[in-house]
């Protein structure tokens, strides 16, 4: 009886086991079907998603073009430097990441907070992939140590980066300017006139730690030429965004910026700076035939390398407050009274106006009375009776008081403009100033006063309101040396040319210019010349022709003149006069024009003259103006620019 029941139960169990097994088989078949769907039917879709998953395009900054001198020597290039940064999207806790980094390298406490804010800012700004730089210029030890710890600290990124470098240091600070991280102001300026999308791309690119923008000088002027176009890096990343490898792709590579050649001879520049021997001043050397600027010296200067990664406020304050003004671009932005170097302009104006004949004599007994005041000549006892040649040679002030009075302020001003005064010469730099050539209209407009005749007398000897830059003095000298031929100065050999075609082509009478040259030759090479000792270039033949000048830093009081205390140790250095000298060489076949100013150097002939002579000596000896390295490629420029043009 129980057997039957038991048998039923057992049979039921077997049947139900079979049902369970069949159900399980169905489920298994369902799983395999799903696998088939995912792996076979939808395979392609998932493969593509897997690709898209791990391949990322990262904005790659272009390498900035170099700046080279006329012989191809780099003035601005790159060097490799270790850099530590944090990639915001790879860390959830910026403070902790920074604290971990700070255990390995030194980070100032106040900077930590700012960096944490920067990291947060990038995350919010949808730029979480843009690294925030923690430290640049790592020492080898620091770099190696950070590399070891890179994997442990979330978000830490250690790499070798290309950093803008100025191998000539201070030599070209005022010509090249410097680059820096783009500030908000920079971005506003750079994106001016762009469409929204272009501007956004540019801004994103400039957030990259490798990107710099020109802040001053040629770096700023030629920004677009040098910058290049950004590209992309094709990166294989893991789920955390860590880069596993890079897939090279030529089509995506950034387009590097173009190299820029300047006309300067960096060796001549160096020699000129050394010749200043620590004195403050400026010098500009030009090739009078081509208009090439061969040297553009302003000293002292700052080191642009200090600015590339941001200069500390303390260091900047030190530069700014330095009494010798290293930030001041004297050569093209420094405005000085030209003193007696201006006398060729006054003489030219007088001859053009026809108010005096070259041989007409003016008597100089040191005093010149006009109205109820008395003007003085620099030479105690006076020059006696002088004609124009003698007046230039001996720099007779009385003669120039007289012809300036006869010529009138407006005519002198007109002539001064023909020599390049009163105009800002860009030449691919920033910071150039126009100086000031005063005239009646200016006085009326700015000062709301009438012009006093007495001011014309000061104008006649290059003092008073008149302000010129050393660059303008070199241009004047070049115009005289070329006897008035049209003259186009330039400093960019290959690169973006300045928009306004600045050229000196106002007509100057060749005969008058020849007289000026003769006068300048007299200064350095004839008895009675104010710089007789500076005429010989020491090259066994070629001589230079020049003109001395003294720029008053302050008025000389009557008492001082009476007591004879005018020079040397007796007055404070910063009150001493500036010494000027302009010259061209060789005197019989001019190739080079130069202007030199030695601040507080006192005597044009004693300090500035020898500096000019030594610079010209070097330029002639080494033939600084010889054919530049880029002239070969310049003739092939269509090809070159095709290659360099962004497509």
């Amino acid at each position, binding site marked *: 009886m129980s057997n039957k029941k038991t048998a039923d139960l057992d049979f039921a169990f077997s049947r139900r086991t079979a049902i369970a097994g069949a159900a399980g088989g169905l489920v298994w078949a369902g799983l395999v079907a799903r*696998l088939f769907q995912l792996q076979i039917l939808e395979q392609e879709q998932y493969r593509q998603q897997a690709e898209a*998953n791990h391949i990322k395009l990262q904005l790659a900054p272009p390498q900035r073009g170099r700046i080279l001198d006329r012989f191809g020597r780099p003035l601005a290039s790159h060097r490799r430097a270790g850099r530590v940064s944090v990639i915001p999207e790879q860390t959830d806790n910026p403070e902790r990441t920074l604290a971990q980094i700070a255990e390995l390298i030194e980070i100032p406490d106040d900077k930590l907070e700012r960096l944490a804010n920067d990291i947060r800012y990038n995350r919010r700004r949808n730029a979480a992939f843009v690294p925030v730089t923690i430290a640049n210029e790592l020492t080898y030890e620091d770099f190696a140590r950070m590399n070891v710890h890179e994997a442990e600290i979330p978000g830490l990124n250690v790499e070798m980066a290309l950093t803008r470098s100025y191998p000539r240091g201070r030599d070209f600070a005022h010509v090249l300017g410097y680059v820096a991280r783009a500030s908000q102001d920079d971005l506003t300026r750079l994106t001016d006139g762009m469409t929204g999308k272009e501007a956004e791309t540019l801004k994103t690119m400039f957030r990259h730690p490798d990107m710099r923008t020109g802040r001053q000088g040629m770096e700023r002027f030629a920004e677009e030429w040098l910058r290049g176009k950004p590209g992309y890096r094709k990166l294989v990343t893991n789920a955390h965004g860590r880069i596993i490898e890079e897939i090279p792709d030529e089509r995506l590579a950034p387009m590097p910026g173009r190299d820029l050649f300047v006309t300067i001879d960096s060796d001549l520049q160096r020699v000129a700076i050394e010749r200043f021997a620590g004195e403050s001043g400026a010098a500009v050397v030009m090739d009078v035939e081509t208009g090439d600027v061969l040297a553009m010296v302003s000293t002292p200067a700052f080191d642009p390398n200090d600015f590339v990664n941001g200069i500390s406020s303390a260091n900047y304050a030190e530069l700014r407050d330095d009494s010798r003004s290293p930030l001041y671009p004297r050569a093209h932005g420094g405005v000085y009274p030209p003193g007696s170097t201006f006398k060729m302009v006054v003489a030219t104006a007088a001859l053009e106006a026809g108010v005096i004949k070259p041989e007409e004599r003016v008597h100089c007994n040191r005093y010149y009375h006009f109205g109820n005041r008395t003007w003085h000549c620099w030479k105690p006892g006076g020059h006696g009776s002088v004609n124009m040649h003698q007046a230039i040679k001996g720099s007779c002030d009385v003669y120039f008081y007289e012809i300036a009075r006869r010529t009138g302020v407006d005519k002198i001003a007109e002539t001064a403009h023909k020599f390049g005064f009163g105009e800002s010469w860009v030449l691919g730099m920033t910071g150039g100033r126009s100086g000031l050539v005063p005239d009646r209209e200016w006085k009326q407009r700015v000062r709301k006063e009438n012009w006093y005749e007495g001011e014309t007398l000061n104008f006649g000897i290059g003092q008073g309101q008149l302000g010129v830059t050393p660059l303008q003095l070199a241009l004047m000298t070049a115009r005289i040396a070329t006897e008035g031929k049209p003259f186009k100065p330039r400093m960019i050999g290959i690169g973006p040319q300045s928009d306004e075609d600045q050229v000196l082509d106002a007509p100057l009478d060749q005969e008058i210019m020849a007289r000026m040259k003769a006068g300048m030759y007299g200064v350095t090479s004839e008895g009675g010349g104010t710089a007789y000792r500076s005429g010989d270039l020491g090259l066994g033949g070629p001589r230079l022709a020049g003109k001395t000048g003294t720029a008053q830093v302050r008025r000389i009081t009557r008492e001082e003149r009476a007591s004879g205390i005018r020079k040397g140790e007796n007055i404070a250095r910063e009150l001493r006069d500036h010494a000027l000298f302009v010259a061209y060489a060789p005197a019989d076949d001019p190739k080079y024009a130069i202007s030199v100013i030695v601040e507080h150097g006192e005597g044009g002939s004693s300090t500035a003259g020898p500096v000019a002579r030594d610079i010209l000596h070097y330029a002639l000896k080494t033939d600084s103006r010889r054919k530049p390295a880029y002239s070969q490629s310049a003739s092939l420029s269509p090809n070159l620019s095709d290659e360099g043009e962004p497509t």
Partner: protein
Amino acid sequence: MSRDGYTGFSRGEARTRTATSLSFETQGPLDKFMRLPWGFILLIAAMALTGIAMLYSSAHTNPAESHLWRLQLIRFGVCFVMMIALGLLPLSWWMRLAFPAYVGTIVLLVLVEVMGFSGGGAQRWLRIGPIGVQPSEFAKLAVTLALARYYQMVLQPQTGRILVHLGAVAIMVIPAALIFIQPDFGTTLALLASGAVVIFLAGLSARVILTGIVGGVASVWPIYQFVLAPYQRERVDTFLAQLFGGATNALGESYQIEQGKIAIGAGGLNGRGYLQGIQSQQDYVPEQHTDFILTVIAEEFGFIGTTALLIGFAVLLGWSLYSAGRSASWFGRLASAGATATIAFYIVFNVGMVLGLLPVVGMPLPLISYGGTAMLTTMACFGLILAAHMHRDEKLTARGLF
């Protein structure tokens, strides 16, 4: 008592088996060891070693996880020895252990509530000496044993009533409720599912089963609405959204499912090759060394490899079910079938989850996923299956509680 009436064995066969059974006590331990189903055991070992190889593949690029495969290998070695030892244990011993183990598990589950610690958002862990354990894992085996023991006690030819099964439901529901409040929805479900299979096999009438199914379907919405915690509800939402192709939050729950599916789909027919999986090697799939290890296999060995794995599981489970059917005692049958069901539901829940067919419930893949407790449970289940197989003719007469 003759058995041939229902087994269908010829008399001769039955005699032989009876003789084997009778000579049981006279056999040496070595003989018994040699009679273990070695094909089954070697398949288990092969699959576990495959799992360790996949664990190496998924974790070797990550310094924090690259040593895990060695740990898992040691665990497997220990559990493997344990499984064989358990397999040699007579069923009478298992039966004696069933209720104490069940009561002990209930105590542990209560202790978890009182003094356990949390991990992964739920209070599941209990610290015993130096190791942390999840009593909910042991509950699966304990409930299976207890149910089998219960039916062995009550299932008589004359007791075909429905009321008998109410006791089984109670045995199952008490630990299930304790696990549910941890909360651990996945384990609760797995426990109820394998318990239900045992009750089904024990002969619950078809009418009741149908009623149960209807009731279960009807209670889906109330459970979703009133019983599930918000994070659990979110999982279900995510699951439904991805199942029907809707938009999901790519960085939340569905990120894991999506990345898992990409890894699986990208594997294609042949896979990318061992250690070559892009998704797997570069950490795109979270938890890929534990619950999502199948994605690594699918990406690196493709449809062929994954199907082979599922076939391997099917062979293990099919043989187990077959073996359960050959057991003479209700305890042996139901314990073995219950253990089989427990492992089967692990697999179904895990694979269904990884393939995006089921919500993410946090269930490891037996033998393959990294994790100690799951390995212990799985191997103990196989030990029980082996024991039922080895002692399929053992006569169990126990009627009392012990």
